[in-house]
């Protein structure tokens, strides 16, 4: 899916969201290009999760317009967002622990073989495809192992493999490195690079400054529901981003 043209995968203009009297988001403009990794940073309550939920179709924006791959989109449910090619890797990964890695990758999109009127699961094809996806992500994960027995990095790989299955064009990752070990963080950042190589745009929502600076091309800082900065990563520094997050510096 790698495309060299400059049509943004996602384009937001003037997005705002109010919950009753509370203004959670105000006039947010942003663009994400294919194969670009964008870091979305901000303190708790800055509006990051509201923004993610609007893009993922959980909420409808009160104001503004959203364009995906050049055409205007309106999502009523998360399924609508998934249908155009937006996948979310949730913080808790949304995996069923009691199922195997392959079963989780194909959850809700199972491959089946028809025997007359009945359709049975095609275990072999699903395991083979899952193994292929884990190979692409260079994660040592066996399709037949239960997710409950896996490490944090492997679980991330399963959750990310799920987004590869549908050929998503934009993957949003919510705090993927929050609760895992140092070695596993390396693995996850590796996974993000794999996605980028395949031309997938990634939005990384994170609190961890080193991770954002390690993989992102651009960083967007949110504060009090507004976008305060949108800079290429090499034009900024962790110090500046921290100042923007805390409000020591108003905008950049």
């Amino acid at each position, binding site marked *: 899916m790698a495309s060299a043209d400059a049509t943004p995968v996602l384009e937001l203009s003037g997005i705002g969201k109010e919950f009753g009297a509370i203004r959670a988001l105000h006039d947010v403009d942003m663009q994400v290009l294919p194969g670009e990794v964008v870091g979305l940073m901000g303190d708790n309550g800055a509006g990051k999760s509201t923004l993610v939920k609007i893009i993922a179709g959980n909420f409808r924006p009160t104001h503004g317009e959203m364009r995906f791959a050049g055409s205007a989109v309106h999502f009523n449910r998360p399924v609508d967002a*998934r249908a155009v090619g937006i996948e979310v890797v949730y913080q808790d990964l949304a995996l069923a622990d009691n199922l195997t890695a392959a079963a989780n990758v194909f959850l809700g999109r199972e491959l089946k073989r028809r025997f007359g009127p009945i359709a049975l*699961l095609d275990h072999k094809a699903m395991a083979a495809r899952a193994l292929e996806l884990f190979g692409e992500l260079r994660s040592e994960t066996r399709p037949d*192992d239960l997710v409950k027995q896996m490490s944090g990095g492997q679980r991330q790989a399963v959750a990310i493999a799920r987004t590869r299955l549908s050929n998503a064009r934009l993957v949003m990752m919510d705090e993927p490195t929050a609760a895992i070990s140092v070695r596993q963080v390396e693995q996850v950042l590796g996974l993000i690079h794999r996605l980028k190589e395949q031309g997938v745009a990634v939005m990384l929502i994170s609190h961890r400054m080193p991770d954002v600076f390690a993989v992102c091309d651009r960083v967007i800082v949110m504060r009090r529901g507004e976008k305060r900065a949108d800079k290429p990563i090499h034009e900024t520094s962790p110090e500046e981003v921290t100042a923007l997050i805390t409000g020591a510096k108003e905008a950049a």
Partner: protein
Amino acid sequence: MAMPMESPITFSNVGKIRWWQRGIFASQTGYVLLALAVLLVIMHFASPYFFTQGNMQNVAKNFSFIAIATLGVTFVIITGGIDLSVGSMMCFSAMITSMVMTELSAPGSPLVHMAADGKTVLANVPGLILLISILAGLGVALIAGLVNGFCIAVLGLSPFVTTLGMLSIVRGLGYVVSNGRGSFPGGPDADYFYALTSGDVLGVPAPFIYLVILALAMAVVLHHSAFGRHVFALGGNEKAAELTGIPVVRVKIEVYVICALAAGLQGIIISGWLGSAPANMATSYELNVIAAAVIGGANLAGGIGGPLGAIVGCVLLEVIRNGLVLAQVSSYWQQTLVGVIIILAVLVDRIRSRMT
């Protein structure tokens, strides 16, 4: 990067889990099955009557009487729910079945037309009355299951409270329609009814045959269909199931309907064996059914369970009951022992999962 298609990954850090640490060998069902085998050997030495053909037929019949309902409730338990209304459902379905059968067969009934030969029209087609009455019994179970499912999945009520209510509603309706009297399967098709419910084929009790067929069907559905996969996913992580686009509401309603239908069928079979459907039939059977499912390895927290476990749980309960009778222990001990076994089975599983 070019990679060979057979194995795109090399596993240098991730070991393979040994066969004896996965699947049935690492499940509570496996341990309880082992315990059951040991118990059977002990029974063989404790009583010469245990392994006689007559006693085995008895055991097979008796555990089949709760095992079909246990299969149904296992579906619900795997999704992380519970159904307390199975006992009442058994009674109500059995009652409706025998009342409809009697009503359709009675010559004076306003519901049926008389044929020229003095019998009712329906009675002239062999088996038709039986079919209609069993469908009526299952029909009421279907409705109760739909109501359970609707309240739990759509209205978001707690499964425990909803089905506790349904336990009372259905039992109450049973008393209302029967006026508290028992009803008896009657009419020209009653003989078919008894043959189908308490008869046997080559010495194998009919309920046992139904059980085996249904258990095999359940195994296929649970492990080889998308629906079964969704049932497990729902029990493992309901939020994940919803986020991945599984039709959570539909799957939930379906499992409660399956459970109610299994209980209804079970009730109809029991009434054939009893020869009647008394209004207090199957009282508190829901506890035996849930106990059997839990002993067999279904996890009330959801995500784990299966037909083999359901059957093993039922067999274990019945062998203990049967064994206590043969050993001439007061039958009052039975209930106490069942309670101990429920706790032991869950305890062993807990210890095992702590060790690995």
